């Protein structure tokens, strides 16, 4: 596939996934609300409350993430080479200049955060600066800037909220059924006997499986956006080989990134929690397998 085809296909894929996801979440929440004897109103209230939480995290998240990761800001004169690379790529993509941060860790990795291009931050580790040459570093930074340009951070925040919503609703469902309030539902005369029982069973199954399904969908979206950022970044540098070599070097480095944990792992360019690559692991991974990413880059 050409670079342009890859980008287009990726964007359409994400839209499709998001629409299906929203329908899925709305369906689950309503199903559970019905089974518990509530009404559609319950679902709407939950959505509004969750929306409130996401709005708060939307604004606070970048500083929290940077704090957890122990990153420090660099100015133009502190690291002119890095600053120049970011500046040049911003000129090439029409983005405003983001803040640039460094994490003091020898493990090579990078991430970007920020709700839109005007409030973005790009972070690299000191290990990345040491181990990569200029073209490879450009490839990595172009990938991160593409995340900013494609509003991936905003997208993933939305997805995380939806996943949380499903988990909340499922949790609700299981607690109420355990304490036998299914009786309350039938006392109100909702669901004549068999229909009521079917809804109840369906909701129970959903409550157990839905959070898992939601996680899988979220991870599928995350992997798709990683491919998109690879392709967009390659279009920006006009040199996919740079990022391909960088990914090879990063994956060859077996050292885990100390400041990363499960909460922030999805942001990084390569999975910082080093583990074994297997079929099951790939399904649960926030990042596509590095071998496949390199193959697609070299096929452009």
């Amino acid at each position, binding site marked *: 596939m050409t670079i342009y085809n890859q980008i287009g296909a990726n964007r359409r894929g994400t839209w499709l996934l998001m629409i299906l996801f929203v329908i899925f979440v709305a369906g689950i929440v309503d199903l559970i609300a019905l089974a518990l004897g509530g009404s559609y109103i319950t679902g709407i209230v939950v959505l509004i409350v969750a929306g409130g939480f996401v709005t708060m995290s939307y604004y606070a998240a970048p500083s929290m993430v940077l704090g957890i990761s122990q990153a420090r800001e660099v100015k133009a004169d502190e690291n002119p080479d890095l600053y*120049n690379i970011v*500046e*040049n*790529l911003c*000129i*090439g*993509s*029409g983005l405003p200049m983001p803040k640039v941060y460094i994490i003091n860790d020898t493990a090579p990795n990078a991430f970007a955060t920020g709700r839109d291009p005007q409030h973005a931050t790009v972070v690299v580790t000191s290990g990345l600066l040491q181990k990569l040459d200029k073209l490879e570093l450009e490839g990595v930074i172009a990938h991160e800037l593409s995340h900013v340009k494609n509003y991936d951070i905003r997208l993933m925040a939305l997805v995380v909220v939806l996943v949380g919503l499903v988990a909340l609703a499922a949790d609700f469902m299981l607690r109420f059924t355990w304490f036998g309030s299914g009786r309350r539902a039938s006392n109100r005369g909702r669901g004549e006997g068999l229909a009521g029982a079917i809804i109840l069973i369906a909701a129970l199954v959903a409550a157990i499986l839905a959070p898992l399904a939601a996680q899988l969908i979220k991870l599928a979206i995350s992997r798709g956006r990683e491919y998109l950022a690879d392709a967009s970044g390659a279009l920006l540098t*006009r040199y996919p080989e740079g990022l391909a070599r960088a990914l090879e070097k990063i994956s060859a480095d077996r050292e885990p990134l100390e400041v990363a944990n499960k909460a922030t792992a999805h942001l990084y360019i390569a999975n910082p929690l080093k583990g074994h690559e297997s079929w099951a692991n790939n399904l649960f991974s926030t990042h596509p397998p590095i071998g496949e990413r390199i193959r697609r880059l070299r096929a452009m």
Partner: protein
Amino acid sequence: MSAALWVVIGIVAIVALIAIFVWSLYNGLVTSRMQVRESWSGIDVQLKRRSSLIPNLVETVKGYAAHEREVFENVTKARAALMNAGDAKSAAEANNQLTGTLKTLFAVAENYPQLRASDNFMQLQKELSDIEAKIAFARQFYNGNVMSYNTKIQVFPNVLLARSFGFTPADFFAATEVERADVKVSFEKKSA
């Protein structure tokens, strides 16, 4: 409700749809053209930065190689041409000329090890090379916008309306023969 009424409603609906289409098409083209112009000014900024460095560079080299008059003249002429250039096309050509003369200037500087070692020269060389990179990226962004805009005014059905609205294709900032030709470097000592 009579059939005539339905026909009237149908016609009104169709006209409304066409009107909305034309409206959004026009706005889309205006936005695209604005993006082309804005990204052109992005290139212009970098070209001006380079132009302002050049007198300093010429003076530094003159300090060590005063007799290479022809080279200095070419650089100065090309710089003046670029500063006078009006539209994208002539600016692109003037820029390519200037790049060529600068290449010759740096090739000549290779003959003078004292010049090459001087801090001033090295600093200027570094700044110039960074500005060249920025010009390259600005060109890339501009050409991307030009491609998008030119495509928009040429696809069907936009092509039917674009010309009557006054949207003409934009020029790419392209390399010309001067830039594509190899630079010939000669190390023969010229007589003073």
